[in-house]
């Protein structure tokens, strides 16, 4: 059985094998020696981490019982607001910005005694699939540092895959948790839209964004999901987790579970990745699951629908960066319009500008009906197609990405080619569904391959259980620790 790192570290703390301060120092020292190669962290919060660790040590010493996440070090993607700690979305335009409040997820975790090691690297404003649009340069893949970690939550994936954080929180708008998890050989859970509060998550595309955990095991993902999913009155689209505790739903039995496999997810996907996912299909069959093969033709329009709607929302959300209230402001200007335009032109990177321009284009007079409205209507078709699919199956199994981690610098110059690699991940965000990526094999170069389990809304329990059963059966063969970081 794949033993989760959160329980393992918790046991060490409870049995006083190590103090929380010592554990935190161990991770901080591993960050110091490995971050030069990985570039996973853009800010290390040593002082805050040691203060939080000391507080947990004092509670343990006073005999107080320790919650599952108390004293366990972790990291947050740099678009999750942390009060008084610089939060930049890895953009020049938010240089020096220190939020005056915490994101709800960080309030919840810090309230449970989580120890923040630092903020991790990401594509600028979460716009990218390789982490290379980051103002701070991209994060490296711990399995081969000449390759990208993926994106946009590349820093979290690199840190967790490189064992310089036991777990972390990322955000997923079109695959930004699942894709880097797949590239770095770890687990990434994108929850149902509304299950986790977005309050304090700096917005990219508000109707797609969700915060979720990146971990080394499925059990860890369940523990973190239980801690962060809840109704939050501060997020007007919050729904909570329907009162489910997903950790208790991990049972070593999937007999009779109906696993759907849709042809469209395999179109154009290389043989080695298709083969790894088909091998997983056989594993599930051997464990007593029923395989349901079907078609999802509505997926054909998923990519353009996603890019039209996400960029439209981004062009509106990013209108707030004007150099007046926070972040970067240009040095020389004659009037307020010039100040705003120069601030934005100097503060945003090329990919962010492209997406703002596309979003403005599809929302502008004359184009709104042909692009935005049409894409919104097609979003409805995709939502309905998934709803119909879940009448016949419990979960859908698919590749996470149609490729494995590629060499740094090889994709960034061609935006369309980069967008096409999001084909397997964006449908989940369009329909607001939960999806989890878990390792399922390696390509010819030894780089990890991920597979994705997709569930109906608020059915995180089903996808986590299916993922957990697979992991327990296959963990020795599909999981390979990297040579970096803390070894336990």
């Amino acid at each position, binding site marked *: 059985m794949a033993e989760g790192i959160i329980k393992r570290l918790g046991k060490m703390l409870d049995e006083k094998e190590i103090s929380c301060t010592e554990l935190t120092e161990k991770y901080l020292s591993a960050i110091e020696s490995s971050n030069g190669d990985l570039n996973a962290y853009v800010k290390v919060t040593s002082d805050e981490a040691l203060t939080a660790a000391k507080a947990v040590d004092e509670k343990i010493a006073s005999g107080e019982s320790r919650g599952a996440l108390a004293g366990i070090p972790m990291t947050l993607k740099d678009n999750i607001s942390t009060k008084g700690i610089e939060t930049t979305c890895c953009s020049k335009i938010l240089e*020096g*910005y*220190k939020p*005056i*409040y915490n994101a709800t997820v960080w309030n919840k975790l810090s309230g449970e005694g989580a120890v923040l090691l630092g903020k991790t690297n990401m594509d600028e404003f979460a716009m990218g699939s390789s982490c290379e649009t980051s103002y701070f340069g991209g994060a490296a893949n711990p399995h081969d540092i000449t390759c990208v970690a993926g994106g946009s939550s590349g820093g979290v994936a690199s840190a967790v895959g490189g064992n310089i954080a036991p777990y972390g929180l990322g955000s997923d708008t079109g695959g930004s948790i699942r894709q880097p998890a797949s590239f770095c050989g770890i687990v990434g859970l994108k929850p149902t*839209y*509304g299950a986790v509060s977005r309050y304090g998550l700096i917005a990219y595309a508000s*109707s797609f964004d969700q915060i979720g955990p990146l971990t080394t095991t499925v059990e860890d993902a369940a523990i973190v999901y239980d801690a962060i999913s809840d109704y939050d009155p501060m997020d*007007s*689209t919050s*729904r909570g987790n329907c009162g489910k505790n997903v950790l208790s739903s991990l049972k070593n039995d999937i007999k009779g579970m109906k696993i759907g496999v849709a042809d469209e997810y395999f179109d154009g996907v290389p043989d080695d990745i298709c083969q790894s996912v088909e091998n997983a299909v056989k594993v599930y069959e051997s464990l007593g699951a029923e395989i349901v093969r079907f078609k999802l*033709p509505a997926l*054909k*329009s998923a990519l*353009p*629908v996603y*890019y*039209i709607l996400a960029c439209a929302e981004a062009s509106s959300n990013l*209108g707030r960066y004007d*150099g*007046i*209230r*926070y*972040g970067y*402001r240009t040095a*020389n*200007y*004659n*009037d307020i*319009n010039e*100040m*705003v*335009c120069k601030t*934005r*032109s100097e503060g*945003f990177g090329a990919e962010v*500008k*492209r997406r*703002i*321009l*596309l979003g*403005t*284009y*599809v929302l*502008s007079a004359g184009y709104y009906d*042909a*692009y935005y409205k*049409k894409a919104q*209507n*097609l*979003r*409805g078709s995709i*939502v*309905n197609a998934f709803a119909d699919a879940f009448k016949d199956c419990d979960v859908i199994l698919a590749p996470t990405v149609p490729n494995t981690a590629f060499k740094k610098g090889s994709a960034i110059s061609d*935006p*369309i080619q980069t*967008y096409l690699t999001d084909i397997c991940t964006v449908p989940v965000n369009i*329909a*607001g569904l939960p999806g989890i990526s878990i390792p399922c094999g390696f390509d010819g170069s030894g780089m990890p391959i991920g597979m994705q389990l997709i569930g109906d*809304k608020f059915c995180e329990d089903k996808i986590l259980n299916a993922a957990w059963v697979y992991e327990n059966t296959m963990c020795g063969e599909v999981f390979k620790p990297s040579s970096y970081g803390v070894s336990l």
Partner: protein
Amino acid sequence: MVTREDIINIARLSKLYIAEEELDDMTKAMDDIVKFADTINSAAEKGVEEFDNINNLRNAFREDTVVPSYDRDEILKNANDTGEGHFLVRKRV
């Protein structure tokens, strides 16, 4: 077909300056992206006219209760230029 004039116009609406030397590359990139976006108009699916949002959320009204807000001085700490409790943009000539 996206033209240089389209890009200049959209950039103006987006409050972005595109440098003259970047204009051709940006026009080409945007033309490729818009052609890619255009594929939705050849989709067989008509779509769902009344589609609104994925969780069928409706406005939920509540009492307008005053709750504590954030401290003005704390908020102003993130600004480049402030004075007398305001954000400032100074006139430059």
